[in-house]
């Protein structure tokens, strides 16, 4: 199954036979005190740096989230979407828990966006899915209900099935425009959680057949050497069936692990992308050496 996202001028395809879709996570004020302060006075200058670094790092899409305390998220998300689209042509993931902010972001967006996200909660479904339909967007679906995030992978599959059923049957959203998030939980909280996520990915991608995504950095929360854990987790999740992730696109160790896994998974024909990346790195090193000598 292919999920196609578009900006005004470019597109990206998510699918099991495609290179893994790297969605940059950085444009998000969570845990960034200075950025939060800037957003309070509607200063979006940090976003320009975030866009440049993530695109340089290998992001194929960018997540845009403006959720911070004491800010006008509705206005900011619209402004941020316009700003990011003026800086890059990769498609965007419009991320908010505030429905009005999602709408403002979608209204500002040119192309077909990915909406982050809807859960298996009636109230959320009734507010968000009509928006997704109206703007012809795709949507990330989370298999958690009013109660909690179920630990049992089969329960996650069941909730995902229900949610996909509602989105397609009641709201007429094409199944390929639903990307299920099997939910990545911090390995530090319980060392058996990652394997449950792997199983949920496998069940959801084989039994429903939809594309999948998750917030990959969550896995390493609270642990030392997070980069290595993220770099290990992603290729394992890819083998389980994961086709995209909202992730750290600025750390070469992590992006390189994903690119290596693309090749191993048979999604980098004759290793052309891998070899080209190697040459680009070589050229950059040589240029830096030449500059240092001059």
């Amino acid at each position, binding site marked *: 199954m292919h999920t196609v996202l578009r900006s005004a001028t470019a597109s990206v395809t998510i699918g099991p036979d495609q290179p893994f879709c790297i969605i940059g996570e950085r444009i998000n004020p969570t845990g960034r005190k200075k950025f939060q302060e800037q957003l309070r006075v509607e200063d979006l200058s940090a976003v320009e740096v975030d866009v440049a670094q993530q695109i340089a790092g290998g992001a194929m899409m960018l997540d845009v989230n403006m959720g911070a305390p004491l800010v006008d998220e509705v206005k900011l998300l619209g402004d941020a979407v316009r700003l990011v689209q003026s800086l890059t042509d990769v498609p965007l993931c419009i991320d908010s*828990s505030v429905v009005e902010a999602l709408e403002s972001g979608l209204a500002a967006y040119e192309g077909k966006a990915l909406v982050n996200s809807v859960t298996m909660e009636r109230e959320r479904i009734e507010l968000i899915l009509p928006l997704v339909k109206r703007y012809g967007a795709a949507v990330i679906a989370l298999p958690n209900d009013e109660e*909690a995030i179920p630990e049992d992978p089969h329960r996650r599959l069941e909730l995902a099935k229900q949610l996909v059923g509602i989105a397609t049957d009641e709201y007429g959203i094409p199944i390929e425009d639903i990307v299920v998030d099997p939910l990545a939980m911090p390995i*530090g909280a319980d060392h058996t959680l990652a394997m449950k996520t792997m199983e949920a990915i496998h069940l959801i991608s084989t039994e429903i057949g939809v594309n999948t995504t998750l917030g990959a950095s969550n896995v390493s929360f609270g642990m030392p050497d997070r980069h290595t854990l993220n770099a290990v987790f992603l290729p394992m999740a890819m083998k389980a069936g994961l086709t995209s992730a909202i992730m750290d696109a600025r750390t070469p160790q992590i992006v390189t692990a994903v690119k290596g896994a693309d090749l191993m998974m048979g999604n980098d024909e004759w290793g052309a992308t891998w070899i080209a990346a190697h040459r680009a790195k070589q050229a950059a090193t040589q240029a830096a050496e030449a500059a240092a000598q001059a």
Partner: protein
Amino acid sequence: MTPDEILKGLYDETMVGNKPAVLELTQEGIDSGLPPERMLFEALIPSLEEVGARFERGDWFVPEMLIAGKAMAGALDLLRPLLAQGGVESVGTFLMGTVKGDVHDIGKNLVNIMLEGAGFTVIDLGVQVPPEKFVAAIEEHQPDIVGMSAFLTTTMPMFKANINAIEKAGLRDKVVIMVGGAPVTQEYADVCGADGYAADAATAVRKAKDFVAAKRAG
């Protein structure tokens, strides 16, 4: 084992999260007549506070904090009936929950353990707690303090929604409201109308005690 050896053992084994050893030592303390309050206040709580301090400095990590918390919770299960029997009254009732839309509970659970250790009766509503559930639980349990946890900037606005609901139900002056969670600041706590905020579990317990003392005095 001398009482001091038991206390030292409890302190050391709690810190490394060795629950079987902590249970054994607690039982040995009970059997040898070591006062449960001493085990609590001279070993278990200081140990968990040290774990919290190390975590705060970035020297220790989440799993280490969790297993230490679990070890202490195990000891508390053994000590609780004795503490009650010994006439150690509950310091107060603390109603706790992670706000609606938020499923993060590591920090909340740790605060719960610390509160229990400090003598509070803790009623944990779990995660994804909607305003009406907070209201119903306040009516049912009549707590001294209501604690709300949020880990996401996107779920922090639920503090205000909960406080509004509590106000609407006419219960606002019956309870002290404390908020916390990674993205929460004192400034935000003030803006949303909470009575208290703490950056870490140990501070939360200290403030909770102060609130109850002030409430009882007033």
